[in-house]
């Protein structure tokens, strides 16, 4: 690829990303009343989107091969326990990640 072609390729990726981020805000501008259905989605989608994101983070886990997702399961369990116990975001994240690093480096 020439430099120009590279710039055009990157520009296409930038444009694609910008479209996915801006589209909802352009279709439903803040100063116009929104359809009821979109308002409904605005209220229920955050939980579903975050749930989807949790699975997306784990998309490369294979239950049938490698470590069978055991380190991930144990570490997420640790995150949940820590979080329900102390409800400190930092402790839950640091603790869960620490356990994951230990598990995949020394146990599995």
């Amino acid at each position, binding site marked *: *690829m020439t430099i120009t072609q*590279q710039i*055009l*390729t*990157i520009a*296409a*990726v*930038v*444009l*694609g*990303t*910008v479209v*996915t*981020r*801006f*589209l*909802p*805000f352009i279709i*439903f501008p*803040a100063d116009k009343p929104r359809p009821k*259905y*979109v308002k*409904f*989605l*605005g*209220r*229920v*989608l*955050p*939980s*579903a*989107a*975050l*749930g*989807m*994101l*949790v*699975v*997306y*983070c784990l*998309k490369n886990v294979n239950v049938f091969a490698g470590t069978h997702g055991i*380190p*991930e399961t144990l*570490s*997420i369990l640790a*995150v*949940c326990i820590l*979080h*329900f116990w102390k409800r400190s*975001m*930092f402790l*839950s*994240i*640091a603790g*869960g*990640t620490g356990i*994951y*690093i230990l*598990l995949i*480096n020394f146990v599995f």
Partner: protein
Amino acid sequence: MNKKSEVRKAFKAALPHTIPIFAGFLFLGIAYGIYMKLAGFSAIYPILMSMTIFAGSMEFVAADLLLGAFNPVGAFVLTLMVNARHLFYGISMLDKYKDVGKKKWYLIFGMCDETFSINCTAQIPVGVDKGWFYFFVTLLNYLYWVLGASVGGIFGSFINIKIEGIDFIMTALIVVIFLEQCLKEKDHTSAVIGIGATILCRIIFGADNFIIPSMIMILGVLTLFRNQLQRRVEE
């Protein structure tokens, strides 16, 4: 309260929320910079691409696109597919990003997975300007990523710190944010639908093609149960 102290207050409130991202993005950004270096690109590529694209997984894909045949339309369509999940984020943030002035456009531009998660769920302390809070979360996360990619691109060949598993920090962060969201709401139907539909689609469509089917399924199921959900959410 004058403008300056208002901005400073929002910065102080936003900063702690971004600390886990600082650690995660620095490592991931460095990994991306090194990846680009190994693929034969000079440091300017990861620096400019992290600044302009600002969508982690798509930047790795873009590196492969640059190494292949020239096909900008294909690159555009692929990007739409990989990043389609942003549409859900946008619909979720329509209300929150209202009335924040010109900052709104930057908030939307910088809405990566992590920034969306924080801004969507964070309880902004009373007296803190929400627009500036959202702005600093977005800006700080953006800077962490660009910093990581730049460091990786420039010093990639000298860096030999590799901590296997550190990238789990992002998963842990998202899990915690998801838990917080569940603790905040009384009805968990939507959360369960999000997790369930996505797992199902991951099994059916495989690791590379499951996000768009998941989104369609989530929309379908939510729409199907709209009446019940609406009643429960309003209670």
